């Protein structure tokens, strides 16, 4: 079963060194997951200052600067993994570097048969 692990943390509360360490540890975790066949995808995101929100209302495209909602912690990246059950997903979430400072939200993925992915 696939789970999306969404990583939220306060962007302002992260030094450049911490950011670098976080990447190194995340790559390590991704490799670990990959070696046991549980890695599907992972990406850190650029800060919310680079976010753009798109809405279409009555056929008209509305593009605004910034994220969809202002929150104290922001979505900073994700892991998409394969896990046998929720406990295994929780175990992986607890290994994500930013879980110590921020929050990891686990969302089970809807299994759609036949949906093409890359």
């Amino acid at each position: 079963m696939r789970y999306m692990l969404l990583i939220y943390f306060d962007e302002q509360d992260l030094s450049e060194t911490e950011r670098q360490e976080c990447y190194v540890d995340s790559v390590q975790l991704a490799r670990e997951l990959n070696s046991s066949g549980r890695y599907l995808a992972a990406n850190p995101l650029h800060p919310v200052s680079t976010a753009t929100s798109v809405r279409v209302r009555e056929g008209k495209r509305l593009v605004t600067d910034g994220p969809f909602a202002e929150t104290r912690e922001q979505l900073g990246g994700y892991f998409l993994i394969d896990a046998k059950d929720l406990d295994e997903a929780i175990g992986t979430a607890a290994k994500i570097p930013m879980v110590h400072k921020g929050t990891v939200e686990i969302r089970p993925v809807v299994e759609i048969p036949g949906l093409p992915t890359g």
Partner: protein
Amino acid sequence: MTENAAGRAREMVEATYRSESRRVLATLIRLLGDFDLAEDALHDAFAAALEKWPKDGVPVKPRAWLVSAGRFKAIDTLRRRARYDASLETLALQLEADSRYVEPRESEGVEDDRLRLIFTCCHPALPPEARVALTLREVCGLTTEEIARAFLTAPPTLAQRIVRAKAKIKEARIPYQVPSRADLPDRLETVLQVVYLVFNEGYSASSGATLTRADLSGEAIRLGRLLLELLPEPEVSGLLALMLLHESRRVARTSPSGELILLDDQDRTLWNRGQIEEGLALVERALSSRRFGPYTLQAAIAAEHAKAQNGAATDWARIVGLYDLLVQANPSPVVELNRAVAVAMRDGPSAGLVLIDAILTRGDLDAYHLAHSARADLCRRLGKTVEARVSYQRALDLTQQETERRFLERRLAELPD
């Protein structure tokens, strides 16, 4: 079979339902991998027993018979549903073919199923109120109406809570298993929280539907016993002891007219000796393990009260010592407050008042009525009538409980002018 024997068989089905239905359910959930399907199967299995046992006699292994009947009924159900949803046919075939579905042996495997059920119902990924409802429903076998009544909740709200929790177990795939050694301490904590919450819900409410609520405490104690039997960890002993020692004072803590009676004023001959003896033995067992935690420490404190002939004979020095450990194990302003009250008993009211004022100054317990009533009590004993009045009044403004309100009003009225 004679009419008499048939009647006995029917009684046997009913007795088996009371003693075995939760065990059978726990195993069926594992075998079928679905709470709702397992509940239906359980129901069908007992209906089959009611039909067959009076005719054919009671089977040698009633539980195994019921599990097996339940499994076949579930396969039938899936077959019927498969007419509308073809994917279920595969599931039914799988169930039939799967080698795990041979007769369950009468071994510890079945007891494991009950532990699996407890840990699943108390999983931290479920909302706390759903954990309580689900545990009472699935592990204790209470009906939704009974649980709703005990928690003063509307039955549809409670039913919805249970439906949602079962859906999350299925959709997010919460596993049906006992946590690994490494995860056990954290996960056990959640289970103990649920049990203690059920107990307190039945214990703190001394007004209203009194009877139903005492049942809730009884249910929590039964759960505690079951848990200790399945998982003899020191903190499980500690929690069971704590509940028994509190429960032993139930009769003594309210007057016939329903007024609250403080520990010091209780008629100790009314305390339930049997529960106290059992509680004391469990505390000893937990303390000697040296792996105990906050529940055992609270039980040890309750044990000191239980052992004392009267308030004056209480070993307050030991109680303060236990609170010191509890503050370390489980730091919280409420624990500090209780420690301050114990210090007041050991060293006199002024020593306690200094500590309570320090806690209140920090602002942590400013909205907690018991902090103000404890302060009021110490002021009263020190003859600080004006301050006592202010604090009793503040406590009165904050309390939600009817008996507590009447108690505080009495205290206020008793203060000298």
